[in-house]
């Protein structure tokens, strides 16, 4: 159906009078409805970033394209009595809506972002044949005593000229302005800013910033990310809150150890130690999350006959996760943690952080120095790896790559976007290879230790079946790892190729 629509925000709370001014003699009231409307998105606004929002109005749940911002959109609407709060995509009934959600929100849960009451009055504007040629919707949206009135004009197919005429007549009335952002207005009234959280580092450092200023800004940003994710970890909405929390810790530690000579040494040592301990307390829960997320993949690796062995494995992992989550929440609630974070924030804001000798050096110069040095190290270590080099070397290279990647991300805003994009692209391919290799070896180790436990302690009748399932998995993972290792040489050759080396030299060697 091809229809056009335009929405205007009325400058004052107008009612029926606006509509009457628009088309005094030929108006037909068609519908009137009042609803509680709830807007859902993931914590990191995955729907919003694709221009979508999930809406629940009464029993109806549907995805709306934000740019259309109109009422009502019937397509893909499903009936759902339950509250979608905390829902994952797989909890929706099968169909187009669920498929779209799967592709967009992946493993994140939907959270309630705003709740409003909306009264919508629909009118038809009639021509001399008394045929509806334009539809009008007057919408009053209320959030906690705050109020927006909007008027939406929607064309009827084949009567576009009447629609254009009415739009221009409405603009002449001068009582409203076109609103592309009705959605954002509603969100702002509800007190949230769409897109204000992302797991990516979106830093925009001041080009003239000194090393001290830039470093503190980076660390402050990471501090905020950690704090933003605490609530989600506590409530256990989904696994990605902990993941983002951990990445922020890792980036903080990496910044502390890599950006040398800018922050006072003893403070750096103190906080490095604090964050190392904090990170350690998150390890167990994250490991368990990863296994449970991969449940389907693991199951697919084994033949039907060995499947029952996995049931026991996973039910054990699940109960262990419950305990690990409890421990994690306790850590977050402890005064030690809260004091540490407060003193960390105070340190970043304070004068002490800017007292060191390199603190005044331009950040861009420091960035070039650190990045180029790290890059050379990666090249050197990578070139030393041959087919018979022990696995240890690959693990070390992976850590070096990660450090380099973090540096590139911290200071990305200093350098041209397109070139940084290319650099990060090269980096990513190599990291994917090293990451897969590492994941596979960690999983094998974990399964190995679990196997020992099953064989030595468990008295359960199905322990042999369990052991067979685990054995099967280890074998599969091992052969996968061999393949990944084999691919390393070609992945690294591309990374160490002329194009990439020249990029680094141009950008960072000064």
């Amino acid at each position, binding site marked *: 159906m091809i229809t056009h629509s335009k929405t205007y925000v009325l400058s004052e709370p107008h009612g029926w009078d606006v509509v009457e001014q628009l088309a005094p003699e030929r108006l037909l009231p068609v519908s009137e409805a009042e609803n509680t409307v709830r807007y859902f998105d993931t914590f990191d606004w995955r729907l919003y970033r694709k221009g979508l929002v999930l809406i629940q109005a009464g029993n109806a749940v549907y995805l709306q394209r934000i740019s259309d911002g109109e009422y009502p959109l019937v397509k893909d609407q499903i009936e759902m009595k339950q509250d979608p709060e905390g829902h994952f995509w797989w909890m929706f009934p099968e169909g187009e809506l669920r498929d779209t959600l799967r592709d967009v929100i992946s493993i994140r849960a939907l959270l309630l972002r705003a709740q409003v009451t909306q009264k919508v009055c629909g009118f038809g504007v009639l021509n001399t044949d008394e*045929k509806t040629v334009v539809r009008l919707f007057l919408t009053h949206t209320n959030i906690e005593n705050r109020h927006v009135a909007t008027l939406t004009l929607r064309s009827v*197919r084949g*009567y576009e000229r009447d629609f254009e005429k009415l739009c221009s007549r409405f603009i002449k009335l001068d009582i409203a302005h076109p609103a592309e952002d009705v959605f954002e207005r509603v969100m702002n009234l509800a007190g949230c800013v769409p897109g204000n959280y992302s797991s990516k580092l979106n830093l925009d450092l001041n080009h003239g910033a000194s090393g001290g200023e830039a470093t503190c800004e980076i660390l402050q940003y990471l501090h905020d990310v950690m704090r933003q994710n605490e609530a989600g970890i506590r409530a256990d909405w989904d696994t990605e809150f902990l993941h983002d929390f951990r990445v922020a810790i890792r980036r903080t530690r990496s910044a502390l150890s890599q950006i040398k000579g800018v922050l006072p040494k003893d403070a750096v040592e103190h906080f490095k130690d604090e964050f190392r301990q904090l990170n350690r307390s998150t390890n167990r829960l994250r490991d368990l999350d990863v296994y449970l997320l991969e449940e389907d993949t693991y199951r697919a690796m084994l033949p039907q006959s060995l499947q029952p062995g996995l049931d026991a494995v996973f039910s054990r992992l699940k109960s262990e996760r419950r305990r690990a989550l409890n421990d994690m929440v306790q850590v977050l609630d402890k005064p030690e943690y809260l004091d540490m974070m407060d003193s960390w924030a105070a340190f970043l804001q304070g004068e002490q952080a800017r007292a060191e000798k390199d603190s005044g050096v331009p950040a861009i110069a420091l960035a070039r120095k650190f990045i180029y040095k790290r890059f050379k190290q990666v090249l050197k270590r990578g070139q030393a790896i041959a087919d018979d080099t022990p696995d240890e070397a690959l693990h070390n290279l992976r850590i070096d790559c990660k450090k380099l990647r973090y540096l590139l991300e911290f200071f990305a805003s200093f350098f041209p976007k397109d070139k940084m994009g290319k650099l990060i692209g090269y980096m990513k391919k190599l990291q994917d290879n090293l990451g897969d290799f590492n994941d596979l070896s960690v999983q094998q180790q974990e399964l190995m230790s679990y196997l020992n436990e099953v064989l030595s302690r468990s008295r359960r009748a199905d322990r042999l079946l369990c052991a067979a399932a685990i054995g099967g998995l280890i074998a599969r993972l091992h052969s996968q790892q061999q393949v990944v290792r084999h691919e390393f040489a070609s992945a690294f050759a591309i990374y160490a190729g002329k194009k990439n080396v020249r990029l680094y030299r141009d950008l960072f060697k000064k």
Partner: protein
Amino acid sequence: MSIFALYSMKGGVGKTAAAVNLAYEAVQSGATALLCDLDPQGAAAFYFRIRAKKKFGRKRFLKGGKHLKNNIRGTDFDGLDLLPSAMSFRNLDLGLDTRAKNKNYLKRLLTPIRQEYDYIFFDCPPNLTLLAEHVFRAADYVIVPCIPTTLSMLTHQKLVDFFKKNKLKRRKLVSFFSLVEQRKTMHKDTIAQAGERKEKFLNAQIPYTTDVEWMGWARQPVACFRPRSKATQAYRKLWVELQMLK
């Protein structure tokens, strides 16, 4: 996507009324539908208060593509569009004869708009010409309103024979009784006899009521101004049955 053609060789059996009311029922549950008026009388457009654009006629219709798309107009009901007819549609046969190498031309003409709609309805003119043959091939179901009289049944039999002779799929042909007056013995008997011969007629019957005639005054589907009329209920029942066809 299904295409229903409301067709009968006889005039005045309630084709247009059925097409308009069924299309209206179809969009009530959120589906989208296009009513394609092939009858030069233009009664369907009249019921929806729609006038075709002045330049629209047989030639543009047969060109298809955007010429056809640009002339589709929205009705007062969300999801229901109409492609109006024009006086020049009386010569659609001639156009089809010179243009179309085979009798699937009309079917192909619809390809670009098929995915826009869940249902397409044809309102056909009352004759058995080349256009009708194109309609039979394009439609998934040919829905035939039948007045329960001897003569009507005879005409209906001729249509069945035509389908057989031209190797058209017999299961496409679906009939229902229209303008039924229960107080007339002839009507009752004809319906009973059809049942005995095990002919395929739908259970829903459209009664003879003035409510349907009032559509010309109200210029709306009967459900809009006589929601509790027997006619409204009958069309609703008919639509339920049509949806279950397979």
